[in-house]
Structure formats: structure tokens, C-alpha cells
């Protein structure tokens, strides 16, 4: 695991910043928002329910996500006949991962709950960063896995930093890497986005999301389903 951590650490290295060109920056963000389906379509998104699979050596891990914009989210993971979940609301967070030996739901630390709050927003970060009081830095052009990208960094009120790589030809986000300081530790994590698809509601959504252990593929994405808030209560 050490190796993996080291590799991730190495992969988090980033680049020289270029002179910010405010006009250019606004233009790129505008095109990015157009590329993901436009502000109007995203403003209508209030909740989501999605199903996904993750493949590892032919085995499938099933995931479901439910989220009410700015309020609460839950992820269920079904692995090897066991069910686990994590829940985050504005006030608290819980995780139950029996595969890791947890025998009952365990609360998230206050730091983790605080740092997770931005993630409760369903919308693309370029639509919400002002509203959430994030600082945005344009870091110029860079390459990411051989693809020319525009690089932006957002810093939220807690000082957590996330860097976004927008494909310079499609203006879609292809990578996001976050640096999180919590519980006395500093951690880095990267997420890759691909296989963008326009949903019937008009938003353009990445159907493949790559993380540490492999790719998660969305098989179903429901926009604005009715979600019972009870689903965000801890169950055993």
C-alpha cells in the first residue's frame, strides 16, 4: 500500500503557474459551462439518484448514490455479498464499511464533515464557486496524460484546495485533484472523468469516473427523483 501512496504522492505534483489572464479565464469558464449543458439546465437539478458499477478483475462492485442538492448525500456499496454505506449531511456524517471490519456505523470526524460540505452541492464547481466563497486561480495551460488542458485551482473557506484540468478542446473536466488537510493529516486524491453523455435533462455528465481503485461506470443517472430524507438516517 505504501507503494500506492507514494505513486499517488508523486502523481500529485503540479506545475508552474502562468500569468492570469482574466478575460481568457472568463471565456474558458463560459465555454466549460456551455460544454456541461449550460447554467439553466444545471439550475434545475435538485436531486440525483444514480447506479454504478466498478470492475476489478472481472468482479463487479455495485454502487448507488443519492443526493439532495446542498443537503445530504448517501453512497451505498455492495461488495462480495455485503452492504456498506456512507452518509453526509449538513450536520453529520456516518460510514459503515463492513468489508473493512466495521461492525456498526461509525461517525465521521468533525473535520471530515466540515471538509465534505462543498461536496453536498450537486452542481459543477464552476457554477457554484462564487456562491460557496471559493477562491479561483487560473494556472494556465498544462498537459494531463498527454492532453492539453486548462488548469484551475479552487480554494475553499477552509483552505482545502482542488485543482481542475479542463480539456482545451472540449472544455470538459478530465481530472480533478484535491488536497485535504484533516485530522492533522494532509491527503491527496485524484479523480478522472470521461465518457461524457448528455442526459435528457440537458446536463452533460461523466459516465465514467476513475479513482484510486479503478473506474466507476454509471449505469443509470436519474435527475430530480423524489428522495425520502429518511434515506439519510443511519441504519444497521
Amino acid at each position, binding site marked *: *500500500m*505504501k*507503494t*500506492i501512496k*507514494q*505513486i499517488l*504522492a*508523486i*502523481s*500529485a*505534483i*503540479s*506545475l*508552474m*503557474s*502562468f500569468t492570469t489572464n482574466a478575460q481568457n479565464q472568463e471565456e474558458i469558464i463560459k465555454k466549460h459551462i456551455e460544454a456541461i449543458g449550460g447554467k439553466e439546465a444545471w439550475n434545475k437539478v435538485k436531486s440525483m439518484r444514480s447506479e454504478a458499477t466498478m*470492475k476489478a*478483475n*472481472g*468482479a463487479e462492485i455495485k454502487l448507488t448514490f443519492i443526493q439532495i442538492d446542498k443537503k445530504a448525500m448517501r453512497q451505498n456499496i*455492495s*461488495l*462480495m*455479498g*455485503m*452492504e456498506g454505506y456512507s452518509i453526509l449531511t449538513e450536520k453529520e456524517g456516518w460510514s459503515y464499511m*463492513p*468489508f473493512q*471490519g466495521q*461492525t456498526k456505523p461509525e461517525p465521521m470526524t468533525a473535520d471530515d464533515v466540515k471538509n465534505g460540505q462543498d461536496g453536498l452541492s450537486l452542481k459543477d464547481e464552476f457554477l457554484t464557486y462564487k456562491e460557496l466563497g471559493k477562491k479561483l486561480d487560473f*494556472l494556465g495551460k498544462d*498537459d*494531463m*496524460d*498527454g*492532453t*492539453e488542458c486548462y488548469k484551475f*485551482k479552487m*480554494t475553499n473557506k477552509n483552505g482545502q*484546495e482542488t*485543482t481542475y484540468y479542463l*480539456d482545451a478542446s*472540449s472544455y*470538459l473536466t*478530465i481530472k480533478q485533484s484535491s*488536497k485535504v488537510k484533516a485530522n492533522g*493529516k*494532509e491527503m491527496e486524491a*485524484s479523480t*478522472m472523468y*470521461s*465518457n*461524457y*453523455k448528455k442526459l435528457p435533462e440537458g446536463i452533460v455528465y461523466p*459516465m*465514467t469516473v476513475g479513482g*484510486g*481503485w479503478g*473506474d466507476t*461506470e454509471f449505469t443509470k443517472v436519474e435527475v430530480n427523483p423524489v428522495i425520502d430524507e429518511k434515506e439519510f438516517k443511519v441504519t444497521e
Partner: protein
Amino acid sequence: MKKRIAIFLLSVSGFAFSQTSFNAGMFGVLEARQMGPGTMSGRITAIEGVNTDDGKTIYVGTAGGGVWKSTNAGASYKPIFDKYCQSIGALAINQKDPSIIYVGTGESNMRNSVSYGNGMYKSTDSGDNWKKIGLDSVEHISKVVIHPENPDVIFVAAPGPLWSKSKHRGLYKSTNGGETWEKIFYINENTGCADLLIDPINPNNVFISMWEFRRQPYSFNSGGNGSGLYKSTDGGKTFKEIKNGLPEKPFGRIAMTLAPSDPKQMLAIVESNKTGLYISSDGGETWKSQSATLNVCARPFYFSTIVIDPKDPKRVYRPAFQFAYSSDGGYSFTEASYDGGWVHSDMHALWINPNNTNIMYVGTDGGVYMSVDKGVTWQFNHGLPVGQFYHVSYDLKEPYNVYGGLQDNGSWMAPSASPGGIGNGNWDRVNGGDGFWTVPDVDGKTVYSEYQGGNMYRTDLSNMKSEYIQPQKTSKEEKLRWNWNTPIVTGSKNPKNLYVGAQYLYKSTDQGRNWTRISGDLTTNDKKKQKQEESGGLSADNTSAENHCTIFTLAESSLDENIIWVGTDDGNVQVTTNGGGTWTNVSMNIAKCGIANQAWVSSIQPSQFDKNTVYVTFENHMYGDFNTYVATSNDLGKTWKRINSSEFTGFAHKIAEDPINKNLLFLGTEMGLFATLDGGANWFRMKNNIPEYALVRDIQIHPKTHDLIIGTHGRGIFIIDDIRSMRNLTKEVWEQDFYLFQTEDLVLNNGKFGWGGPEISGGWVTGNPASHPSITYYLKQRLNAGKIEIEVYDSNNKLLQTLPGTIRKGLNKVYWNMRETPPKVAAGSTKMDGAGFTAPMVLPGQYKLKVKVKDKEYEGKVNCIHDAANKDLSEADRKLVYEKATQLKTLYSNINNTIDTINLYQNQLKKDTVAFKKNKNAMAFHADLQKVKSDLMATTKKSIFADEERLREKVSKLYGSFCGMESKPNATQLESIDDLSNEFSKKKKEMEAALMKHLPKNPEIKNNKDIR
């Protein structure tokens, strides 16, 4: 398994937006493994910590490995400067806003092998992103100091160029956070600013030491009338020279310090004809000589750090040849203890946590050490892989070993792969001193190595006993001149030939037991360049580092052992075609293509395809010329053609030709690794998880594994595993939108290594190469919409597995585990069941690949072959294992289907929980099903520390062992399959009996269409 997953995680690449049709981005997936090691680390030049962070955040600048950051007080480090110049002179943190960091590139410990910088850099986000902010031409920076009250004011001490006269030296100041710079103090073209202090209490007091110094390829001078100590009392507007109490000029280098808690207390080590320690207690106005130990005063040009404790003006630290400290303001010194382990000598940096002055970090020629007892004892930080290799080599074992010698860290070897990965403990020391060429003999038992100045040994690897084998001068020779970095080379055609070079070339065919001199003096033998005993300047410094007019590189043609090429440090390229009988000096022919005739010949690569062709790198940096010089000849050196590229940066160390594709060449320079696919017409920078400006000293291509082995002077060794896809990526391929390469044969086994025991704790750990070849394809452009899937079919066209494909531009690699799809696992257990992750390994044969790229399909094939090397498993055994594993998979699936059925009934029964609790029939039905289910799988114990083994767990365990089996199964294993099958049949009958019994009493279930 773990390592294979690690391979999937490799990410990040580089990309050159170059004009050529191929570029680094295409090969980004060929990620180098960073071997490190952290075992011996390398030279540290600067350490700074964040004062307001409990001492947790520390930045380390290195001689050739960039900047590293720790956020856990040194428990682990990560590199944060991999896109820029790797030679670091100084660091500074704005302590009022510690997200602002300045890096001055270009180390200022002015030894012979020091690299150079390209200016100042600034980060405003704690080192994530950097911006170049000027002073591009100063080459060396020794100190960066931020004004204690106004952090927009920054002072930079620039000794300036080492190898040439320059106006770009002196004291620089910025008043706008580095946007613009002004040179505020300057003496002359030979004198730069070596040290810089600002009084923290009265920042108008600025102290600087000016230093006159110069290196030439064959001598060093520290000292001159330009050197001096200066003080400003107006924030650097004006300076006055301080002489009162100091020795007579000329001075050499001066290191100085003041007590932050009482800045009138100052100390200085002044190099002069009376080099010594001087003390001032009036803010530097007057000084008094103080007797001090050798350690305090030795080698002032190299040891320029002296520090007074932030709180205690009496506590003084002198990290130098050893670590010395004083508790009485510098009147007496004692040296650190080795109770915490040996501490590497030669120290250049010290950071003391101002909030807890017991804690400090020292930077040495061999890494960072931490003390928690005011410098008395030290603990090594094991995770900084910044070793400075000069050369690397390999043997032909499986897995092969790498060998190499390092600056001030001896010679070492390590396996290129090892169970559990390669950690600090996998490295074995071969020799001491400064290490250079470390070359294994073809016998597999012997290695040749050396320390500085050609002191060479033959070592028996079975017991590490060494014999000194340097050829000695006889009456027929002049005094032998051995380079600091003397070549020891075995023959490329005849590996039993061993060559070493002084000014003469020597050859041995019996492992250095006997030598034949096979040349006259091959150098220019310029006597003006041979006065090393006068080297050093005010302090004698003659450690063989300046030896000159010597052979520096040599190579035997891999096509003809009688063709030998020799390159010298004074510009000669000599070639013989008769094994040394006669020699031709071709250097005058080279000068015609614009390469200075005194330039060092840094490497020679005789072509492996044509006897008359040769590639040579030259470097002229010791004459102040950092250009990249590469030339080739195809007529044995009569005429030469320069190879050049706008991509090149840094002076050239090494050129390597691929042994299979003659158009594939690699070039290593002081600032990067470059490759060409078209024989040298177009080049691109390699960024494959390698710092973009790495100091690449050596490049080897392993003939069996096709690995590219890279020796860097500051980041240890890198290995890019199996570059065959790079060889095969021809123009015909890269012009297509998609191309599936023929997959190499997959040998059916679980890889080369087992688990390898518990994880290595601490230090630098590198993973192993992929255990099996990948399915490799090329994509012209990254795929944004749609996805790639690879389907694997057997000969009956049965789909075995669907693999998700990667979508990056250029080469992509996907690994198939040579197995089918694992069985499904029924829900409801309290234990995770691993069987759902594994499947029987396929049998030998040809398998079809169908690659779906968006809406297009491409076909390929892959051969899976029996592992003939495994004597424990015959082909018949393999079939038996496969059949039994498949039988167990079926049994496992049947158990899960039965559990699924039970789950279905139980869920229906409990659908309405209120009604369920009132319905006795339903409860009885549920209970009987639960009884069967709890025999079928673990349902009670949740804790991972409590075993609960029911039928499914037993089958799963046996199934797992058959899936991973690499030997013939034993009789008990085979027998237990039948037992478990019988047990299952019994349980299935029990379930059926429960249904028979209860369904009639539960009509709502019996009639439920969802179940039927």
C-alpha cells in the same frame, strides 16, 4: 495482486507541445519506477520549516533532486519541484504567510560536481505551483532572506557563475515580492555574494560576505582581494567593509551567523591565510580570533553553515565535516554522538524549530537527519531518494540487479524486482568513498568498482571481499593520471575484456589480475593543466577532483572487439581498429562541426548496427558553456555531424542507442532525458514520472527485459519497464486513430514473486514491474465521449471477461489476469467473501481480443502458454487444477443461488414487518429457512477478528486455493471437494424440505408471482 493493482494506478505523464509528430505524451503510460533508494540519500543543500505549524511542515532543497516537502516532520517526503531545475541553492518561507515560498536554484557548495541553476522561483500555494521570477543568469544562489517585517522585501545572495567571469553576481534585492530585482552590491566579475544575514530586531542591519572564487576543469581557487565582510545599517543602501579584528586579507569564503535573540553576538568562519573562527559581540563592528577545532574550520568553500540557536545566544551549531556544537558562544566545541546511528559527514544545511529548539534537521551529503536533543544525537530520515549516481549498470540475472556509484556515498547494488517491492533494505554496499563506475563481471559472481581517483577493486559478491586492482606505473610510464570518475568498462563484444583508463588505456582478460597497456598517452598531456597540487586557493584542496588530461570514457564496439573508442577530459576522441595496436585521434574532425576542442568527451556509443558509426556526447560546462553537444560519425570518425534540437537543455552526459530499433536513441543531460524515434532528427523530452530537468548521467537498455535504466545525479535510479512498445510505435502506427499491438505471450502463472512478507516499514519503497505483459494499444486522441472495453473470448467464442480500457492519448496498457469472470456472491453474510474476486486461470491456448472503441471494434489475439519453468505443475496437472477449480466455482455458484432463493423468500415474508410479526406460519417458515442459511454461510459474527466458517466459507477457501494453485493438488484437497458437494446437496434438500413444509401454510408466498 497488490503490485498489479499498483500498476493500474500509475498516472501522470508529460507532454511536449512540440512541432514534431511524436511527443512525450504518447509514451506517458510507460511510467518509470523510481528505485531511489532512500538508503543512502544524497546531498542536501537547504532546509526550511514553517514556524507556525508545530514543526510539521519542512521543505528540503537538494543538490540534484529538486525540492521535497514533508508535512509530518520528516516521516515521509514528496517531491514538489519536478518540472524545474533540480539543483537547489536556497529556500525561504514567508513566515507571515507560509503559503509563499521562494526557491533559489543552483547549489552553492562549489565542489567539482556541483550543478547550476536557472533563477528564482516562487510559489504562492505552499509549493503546488511555481512561477519563475528572474535572476536567470546568476547560476548559483546561496541564500534567500525575507525581510522580517516587510515580506515583499527579499534579499538574494548570488555567488554567481563558478566556471566563468560574470557580472551576474552579488547581492540582489526585490521590494515587490520578486517581481523585479535590483543588484544592490557588487564587487567585480570574479566575486559574488556568499553569505547574507539580516538582524531580526533591527532589519536595517544587513551583513554580507563577498567571495572571490573560480573553478577550472583542472584547478580550483577560493580566495582573492574581492572577498570581504560587509555591513549595512540602512537596509542595504550602503555597505561598509569590516576589518577590525579580522585576519589579513585576502579572504576566501566567509560563513557567518548572528544570535536571533541577541543579534549583537556574531560568529564568522573566515577563510584566509589564518583560517579560523572569529567572534563579535558588538554587531560585527569588531572581531576577535577564537581558537577552534579542525572540524569547525575545515574546507570553508564546502562547509558554509554556522547557526546560533534562535533562543539561546550561547548555543552554536557548526554542521561541517562533522556536526559540532558549542554551549558557550563558540569558545569551545564538541561533536555529536553516534548513539542514534552513524551520521553522514559533510553537512550543508540546518533548520532549528524556533518554537522548540530541541528539534532540528541537518542536511548532509547523505540525506536529512533529525535531532530532538539539540543536535546531540541524530535519527536518519529514510524516505528521501535523492542519491547522486554517476553511472549505472546491470547484470543478466533474473530478476537482474542494478549497480551504481554515487557522489560521497560509495557503490551499491540492488535487485530490479523483489518479493514485496524494493525497499531501502534491498540495497547492498559494494564499495565506499565517492562511487562511480560499478560494473558486474559476466561470471555473475564478481563486480568491479572504485572510489575517487581510479582506486579500483574487484569484489567477490559471495563474501564481499575485495582486491585492489589498479594498474601501477612502471619505468615505462609517466605518473599515472586517473580521473576523479575513472572509467571501468567491460567489453560490449567480448564481455571478458576489462578496460580502465588513466592517460593510457589498460586491458585485462583475467578480471584485473594482469593488465596490458594498449595505448600511449591518449590525452593532450598539457602540463599547464596538471598542477593539481597547487589547487584550492587559500586552503589546499586536492582530492583528485581536479585531476586532468585523463581518459574519461571508453567503449568497445559490440560488433568487433578490436574497435575501441576512447574519450578524454581534454577533448580527444581516439579510435583503434586493431585492439589498441594503433590509435587515431579524430578530435580535429569533430571541431569542424562546432564543438570546442577542449570539451570533455562524456560518452561514446559505438553503433550496434554498423561498425563505422558512432555517437558521442561532449560537455564544455567547465569552460562556462552549458550547451548540449552531440555528434555522430558514420566513417569511423573521419567526418562528423552535429545532432541538435531546440528541445535540449543542459550539457550532455550520455547517449544510448536502442539495440533493436536503430532509430531510437536516448540522450541524458544535466537537465533532462530526451528521446528520438527517427535517428536523431526530432527529439522530445521524456517525462515518464521522471523529473523533467533530472540530471541524467547514465542510460542503459537491458537486453533481456528491454528496460530503460536511468542513473540520475540527484534522484537515484529510474527504470522504465519494457520499452518495446516505444520501439514498435512507428509512423505507420502513430498516424492511425487506434492501433492494437500484438500482445506478448502470457505465461500462465501467478507472477514471478510471492507476497514477500509484511510490508516494508518506512524508507523508500518501489513496486515491481508488471508480472505479465499488457494488452497495449495506441490512441491518437484522448477519448472524451464513449468508452473502451476489451472483451476476451476463448476458442469457443465464450466471453471470459470484459476489461475496462483506459482512454489516454498515446499508448495505453490494460492487464488481463488470465482468468474468467469470478462467481457472483449472494447477499446477507456478515463476512466478506473473497471468492467473488477470483476465477480459475485459463488453460493454454489462443484467446481472442475484441476491443470496442466507442462504436468501432478491433480484433486481436493473445496466446496463453503453459509455464514450462514450473516443474511442480505439469500440463496434465494444470488441466486437473482447472477442472477442479471450475467444479468448485459451480459449487460455489450453486450455494449462492440457494442463498439467493432463501433471501427471496425471506424478503417476501418480511415485506410487511408488522404483519410478519403477527403471522406465526410466516415466522416459522422464515426461521427454518434461516437455519439452512446459517449453515450455508456466516451470519452471526461481524468482527473480522472472529472466525465463523460455514459451508460457503469452506468452499470459498478451497476454491481460492485451486484458483491460485501452481502445483499438483494433494489427495485431501481433491477429496474435500466431494465432501463439500455432498454437504451442499444435504443443505439444498433441507431447503427444499422447508419449502415443501411451509409453502402450503403460507399461500400468499406460494401464490406470489415475483417468486415463481
